[in-house]
C-alpha cells in the first residue's frame, strides 16, 4: 500500500474535494506557511468553488486567501484568529457567508461533539514518513509543537499530510500516527523558516508596557497565588511577555518552585524552566527557535493537543488547572468585556485564540493594556466586539492603576492591603479622556453581519458587522 501521491493537485483529487466542502489547515507555520496558499491555488485552478476553510488561525502570510474569497472559491472561513490582511476583505463584505470565530479550545470541542465537520484536512508536517507518521519537532521547517493539528487528523473524513522532509518508515517520535492519514505529499518547501518561528522573542523596550508588566506582576504576587506549585500562562507580545520577566524576578528572589507554564511558548518561558522555576512546560505552540529546541531536548517540555490545552468539553484540560494568566486587549469596557477581534474602526484584526478559554479557566485572569494606545481609546464604555465576557476577567492592569472586577472583592482587599493603585474602570476611563480628549462616538453600520463570534461551547456570543 502506498499513501504517497505525486502532487498537491493529485491529493486534492484523490481526497475528493468538491464544491461546498469544508477543508482545514493548522497555523503552526504561522506567517511563514506556504501550504494553505499552495492548496488553495491548486483548488482554484481546478475550478472548485464555494468552499469553507476551517483553519486554526489565518496569518498575514495568508493574504492571497483574500483573492479566493473575492472570487467565490472560498465562501466561508471558520477560524480562531484572523489578521487584518484577510480580515479587511471579510470586514468589507466580500465573503458570501458570515465567517465563524471560535476559540482555540472551542474548535477541537466543536469537532469532537460533531457541531462542526471537516471533509478534508491538509496538514503541513515539518517531518513525515511515507505512511503519515508526522511531527513538527524536526526538519528544515521545524515549528515544534503541532498542538492545533491533532484534531484535524482525528476528525476529518480524509487527511492529507504535506511535508518537505520525507523520512524512511517508521518515524518513531511522531506527534500524530499513521492510522489517521490517507495521503502523503512531498513538496520542496512547506514554509519560509523566517516566518515560521522568530529566532528570538525580544522583550519590549516600551516604557509604558514595562510599567504595566511590573504592576501586573505585583498584582499576581498580591493575589496569593504566586507560591510553590504556581502555574502560569502569558502571551508572547509586549506587556504580557514583560510580565513574565517580572514574575521571574519575584520567583527567583523568593525561591518559588512553580508547577507548569502553559500556552504558546517562548524562549523566555524556556529560561524559567531551565532555571528551575517550573517543573514542566505544556506546549500547544512554539513561538521561537529556542522553544522548538527545548521541546526536542528538555524532558519536562512536552507537546499537548488543543483539546488537552483548553477544550471546555474535555474531561479536564491543562487550562483548567491554571493559576494565573496574563492576556492583552484591543479594547476593554466598563463591564470588563474584552475585544481582541476588531480594531477601533470595526475591521477584523485578530481573534480570541486561547484568550476566552484560559480567561474562563484560570483562577486569576489579568488583562494588561494601556488606557489608550497613541490616543486610540482602549478603556471604553462598550467594546465593539465581545471576545471574552467580562465575567471571566478579574483584573485590568494599566499604566495608571489596576481595576478589579467587582465580583472579586477578595482581590480588591488583597491589592489594597499590598498598597497597589486600585482604581475603578470608570476612573481609568476618565483618566484616558482627560489625557486624550473625549472621543467622538463611532457609528456602526448594522446592515450586514460579516462574522459570528461563538463562545467556547459554540453558542453565539457576538456578531461583527461590515465596515462601510
Amino acid at each position: 500500500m502506498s499513501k504517497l501521491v505525486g502532487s498537491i493537485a493529485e491529493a486534492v483529487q484523490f481526497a475528493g474535494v468538491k464544491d461546498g466542502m469544508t477543508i482545514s489547515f493548522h497555523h503552526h507555520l504561522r506567517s511563514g506557511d506556504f501550504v494553505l496558499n499552495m492548496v488553495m491555488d491548486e483548488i482554484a485552478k481546478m475550478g472548485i468553488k464555494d468552499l469553507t476553510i476551517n483553519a486554526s488561525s489565518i496569518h498575514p502570510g495568508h493574504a492571497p486567501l483574500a483573492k479566493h474569497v473575492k472570487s467565490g472559491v472560498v465562501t466561508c472561513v471558520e477560524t480562531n484568529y484572523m489578521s487584518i490582511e484577510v480580515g479587511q476583505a471579510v470586514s468589507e463584505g466580500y465573503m458570501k457567508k458570515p465567517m465563524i470565530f471560535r476559540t482555540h479550545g472551542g474548535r477541537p470541542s466543536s469537532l469532537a461533539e460533531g457541531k462542526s465537520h471537516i471533509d478534508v484536512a491538509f496538514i503541513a508536517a515539518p517531518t513525515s514518513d511515507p505512511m503519515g507518521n508526522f511531527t513538527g519537532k524536526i526538519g528544515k521547517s521545524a515549528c515544534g509543537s503541532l498542538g492545533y493539528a491533532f484534531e484535524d487528523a482525528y476528525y476529518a473524513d480524509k487527511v492529507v499530510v504535506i511535508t518537505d522532509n520525507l523520512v524512511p518508515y517508521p518515524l518513531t517520535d511522531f506527534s500524530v500516527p499513521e492510522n489517521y492519514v490517507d495521503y502523503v505529499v512531498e513538496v520542496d518547501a512547506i514554509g519560509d523558516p523566517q516566518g515560521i518561528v522568530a529566532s528570538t522573542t525580544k522583550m519590549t523596550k516600551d516604557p509604558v508596557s514595562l510599567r504595566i508588566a511590573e504592576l501586573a506582576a505585583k498584582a499576581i504576587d498580591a493575589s496569593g497565588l504566586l507560591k510553590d506549585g504556581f502555574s502560569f500562562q502569558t502571551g508572547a507580545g509586549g506587556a504580557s511577555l514583560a510580565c513574565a520577566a517580572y514574575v521571574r524576578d519575584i520567583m527567583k528572589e523568593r525561591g518559588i518552585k512553580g508547577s507548569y507554564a502553559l500556552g504558546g511558548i517562548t524562549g523566555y518561558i524556556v529560561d524559567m524552566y531551565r532555571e528551575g522555576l517550573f517543573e514542566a512546560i505544556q506546549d500547544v505552540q512554539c513561538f521561537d527557535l529556542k522553544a522548538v529546541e527545548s521541546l526536542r531536548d528538555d524532558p519536562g517540555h512536552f507537546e499537548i493537543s488543543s483539546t488537552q490545552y483548553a477544550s471546555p468539553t474535555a474531561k479536564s484540560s491543562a487550562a483548567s488547572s491554571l493559576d494565573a494568566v496574563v492576556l492583552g486587549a484591543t479594547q476593554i469596557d466598563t463591564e470588563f468585556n474584552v475585544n481582541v477581534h476588531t480594531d477601533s474602526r470595526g475591521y477584523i484584526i485578530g481573534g480570541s485564540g486561547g484568550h476566552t478559554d484560559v480567561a474562563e479557566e484560570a483562577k486569576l485572569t489579568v488583562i494588561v493594556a494601556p488606557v489608550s494606545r497613541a490616543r486610540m481609546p482602549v478603556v471604553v464604555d462598550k467594546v465593539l466586539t465581545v471576545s471574552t465576557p467580562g465575567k471571566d476577567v478579574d483584573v485590568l492592569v494599566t499604566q495608571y492603576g489596576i481595576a478589579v472586577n467587582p465580583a472579586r472583592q477578595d482581590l480588591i482587599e488583597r491589592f489594597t492591603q499590598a498598597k497597589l493603585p486600585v482604581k475603578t474602570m470608570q476612573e481609568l476611563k476618565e483618566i484616558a479622556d482627560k489625557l486624550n480628549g473625549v472621543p467622538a462616538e463611532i457609528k456602526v453600520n448594522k446592515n450586514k453581519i460579516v462574522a459570528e463570534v461563538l463562545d467556547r461551547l459554540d453558542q453565539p456570543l457576538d456578531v461583527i458587522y461590515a465596515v462601510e
Partner: protein
Amino acid sequence: MRRTMMFLPGNNPNMIINGGILGADSIILDLEDAVAPDQKDAARELVKNALESVDFGGCEVIVRINALDTPYWEDDLEAVIPLKPDMIMPTKVSGAEYCKTLSAKMDEIEERCGIPVGKTKLIPLLETAIGIENAFTIATSTPRMEALYLGAEDLTADLRCKRTKEGNEILYARGRLVTAARAAGIEAYDTPFTDVEDLEGLARDAAFVKGLGYTGKAVISPRHVETVNRIFSPTIAEIEHAKAVFHAIEEAKAQGKGAISLNGKMVDAPIVMRARLVLENAKAMGMEVEEI
C-alpha cells in the same frame, strides 16, 4: 522625595506624555544630548507645550538645557521658564561664573513673567574635570542651587580614562561632588548606570553611592526605576531605629532627663537629624509613620 531622576528625550512625544507614570520621583525633559542640532527648535516647542498641558502625576519636572557655549541656551530658558518647571539642569558647568551668567538670565525672565525671582531652582550637571574641581564654588554660586549632579560619561572622556562598571575612575569625582554638595547644604545625584539589562550591577552601584551620601541617582531606562527607588528608600531597620530615637527623646522628656540615650549610646543632634530625615522620606513614600 528624590531618589530617581529619569531622562526623557525632549523631541519624543510618546516618552514625554508618559513621563508621569514611570515611577521616577523626578523626570528630566532633555533638550541637550538627546536632541539633534537641527531639531532643537522642535524639541524646545514640544517641551514647552508639554509643560503647559501634560499632567506629570506629581513628578518633579527638570528641563536639561544646552550649554552656555551653544547658541541655544537662552532660547531654551525663554521657552521653558515661563511654564515654571521645578528645576533647570545646565550642562558642562565649569564654575561659579557660568552659574551666575545663567542665573542672571533666569532672573530677567522670571521678573518679566511675574514669577518670584529665584523660584526656578538649579541642578547643574558637573561632567568636566574643571567642573568637579570647582564643585563647591558652583554649589554656592547662587541661591538657586538645589543639588549637584555628576555626569560620568563626559567626565571620563575629559579625564582620558575608560568608563567602567566598577567605577574606580570616578571614585574621586563622586567623593568630591557629594562633599561639596553637603558642605553647601544641597543634594547630590549620581550618574546613570548604563547597562540596561544588568539589574544586579545597578543595585550594587546604587548601594555604593548611597553609602557615599548621595541622595539619589539618574536613570536612563524605566527598568532601573524600581531598583534605584528601593535602594535609596529607608530600610525597615532604619525606620525602626529612627522611631526608637524619637521614643527615647519623649521618654527622656517625660522623666525630665537632660541627656538621652538609646541602647547605651548618646542620642545627639546628628542622630536626631538623621532619624528625622529617615522618617520624612518614609512618609513621603507612603509608608505608615506616626507624626513626629
